[in-house]
């Protein structure tokens, strides 16, 4: 009986141990994968991997910029991770291994700088709002003021997120009160509603229209400059590859990076 019980106990301990080993194995692999980048930081020439967390609205421009950067520095691989700025900021604060953070707005960069995880951020681009309508413009929207009409089904960003805060500011400055049918979390969700024809109009950034291809048309907002959104970038203090991180930030704010951003419709800082 006692013998039996001991055998059972041993089986239990063994299976626990096996699982613990499995879990430990995962961690060890993760460390091994990361070490080359750490080692490279000591080298004089740029090499290794530089991990860039960038806002989803920068997907096209940053992919282009990263390709060009890699072409100039053959030893470097740029690993891009795109997402909502607030998602990325949360990930960085929770310890995600990133070298550079490019935010779509100053508020989310502040989350990272407040946690003392980023150096001094620089504004690398600006963006203004515009009205997006389906290509056939079913509600015949011709101005920002038209969005005040209840008959125009309009979708905006929620005031809690930067694009919504900017929209709210424009509404106040231009004296238009938009009876929005939905307040979305991000520009992508606004675009989705307009592109599918579910909404007649949406308020988004100028650069988003270019990203959306031919399904959408833009109705420019007269006086859009009243709400300019600034995009900051910064190398992170816990960067595994600080040399390459600084070099990448300089590239984005330099002539070549700025040319790519200007082509996509971003304003200069």
């Amino acid at each position, binding site marked *: 009986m006692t013998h039996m019980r001991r055998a059972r106990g041993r089986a239990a301990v063994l299976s626990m141990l096996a699982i613990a080993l499995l879990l430990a194995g995962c961690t060890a692999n993760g460390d091994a994968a990361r070490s080359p980048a750490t080692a490279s930081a000591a080298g004089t020439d740029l090499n290794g991997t530089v991990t860039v967390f960038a806002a989803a609205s920068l997907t096209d421009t940053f992919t282009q910029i990263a390709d060009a950067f890699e072409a100039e520095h053959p030893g470097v691989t740029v690993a891009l991770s795109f997402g909502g700025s607030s998602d990325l900021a949360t990930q960085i604060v929770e310890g995600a291994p990133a070298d550079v953070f490019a935010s779509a707005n100053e508020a989310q960069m502040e989350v990272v700088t407040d946690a003392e995880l980023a150096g001094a951020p620089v504004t690398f681009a600006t963006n203004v709002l515009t009205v997006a309508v389906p290509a056939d413009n079913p509600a015949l929207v011709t101005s920002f003021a038209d969005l005040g009409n209840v008959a125009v089904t309009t979708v905006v960003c929620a005031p809690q997120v930067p694009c919504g805060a900017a929209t709210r500011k424009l509404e106040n400055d231009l004296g238009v009160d938009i009876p929005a049918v939905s307040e979305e*979390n991000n520009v992508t969700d606004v675009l989705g509603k307009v592109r599918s024809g579910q909404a007649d109009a949406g308020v988004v950034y100028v650069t988003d229209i270019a990203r959306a291809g031919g399904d959408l048309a833009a109705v420019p907002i007269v006086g859009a400059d009243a709400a300019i959104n600034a995009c900051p970038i910064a190398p992170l203090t816990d960067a595994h590859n600080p040399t390459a991180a600084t070099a990448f930030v300089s590239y984005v704010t330099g002539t070549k990076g700025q040319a790519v951003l200007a082509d996509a419709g971003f304003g200069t800082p």
Partner: protein
Amino acid sequence: MRGRTSGYVPTWLPPIAVVGALLVLMPLIAMATRVDWANVGSLVTSPSAVAALALSLRTSVAATALCVLLGVPMAVVLARVEFPLKALARTLVLVPLVLPPVVGGLALLYAFGRRGLLGGTLNLLGLDIAFSTTAVVLAQTFVALPFMVLTLESALRAQGSTYEAVASTLGARRGYTFRHVTLPLMWPALVAGTVLCFARALGEFGATITFAGSLEGVTRTVPLEIYLQREVDPDAAVALSLLLIVVALVIVGFAYRHPGSRRVK
């Protein structure tokens, strides 16, 4: 670890169960450590939180009722009626389970949206569900329905149709047999399916935000409110998540405490 009735359980099995339980519990415990306990009360009673909670309860109850109404006939047909391409039908019913909810929302948009397949028909009938609470219920029903069908159908198939056959040989009509034999037999599974549907509807996020949008009191359910609050006030988001978990636990616990295991007499 060595429980009283563990005679038939291999010794290596409970430790693995513990690891599984930890996988589920650790994130919940971690979340509890982030709760701003001093302000939880005020955070979950803010007007926007209350509006979201009321909307979530209303829509989840409606969606669950729809799941019962549509899911019971679907499960009975799948379990008891022979028809061509039945295997395909069973697979298709389960599609919303594997579909990412955002894709489900897009699919709903393509079907019921203003420019969707049925959009014109709905418009003629004077129904505009775009950005309405109805759209939320539709999204929740779409993602929750497979849970009802799956639960009921497997229970019915496991039981076999012996009781129905006996009732039939005793002269019972189909309607009578369904009400007095089939329904009581599937009662425990119906309760389980209802709980699963409600829980799924309560947590639904992706299909709702894609298909219905997000407006306070109309389409912004608790998960959408959490997603939005997270942008500005992570404490409020965590407090609301806690509330959602408590509501779900209370409902699930209540349902399982009264399994209503009626037997055929």
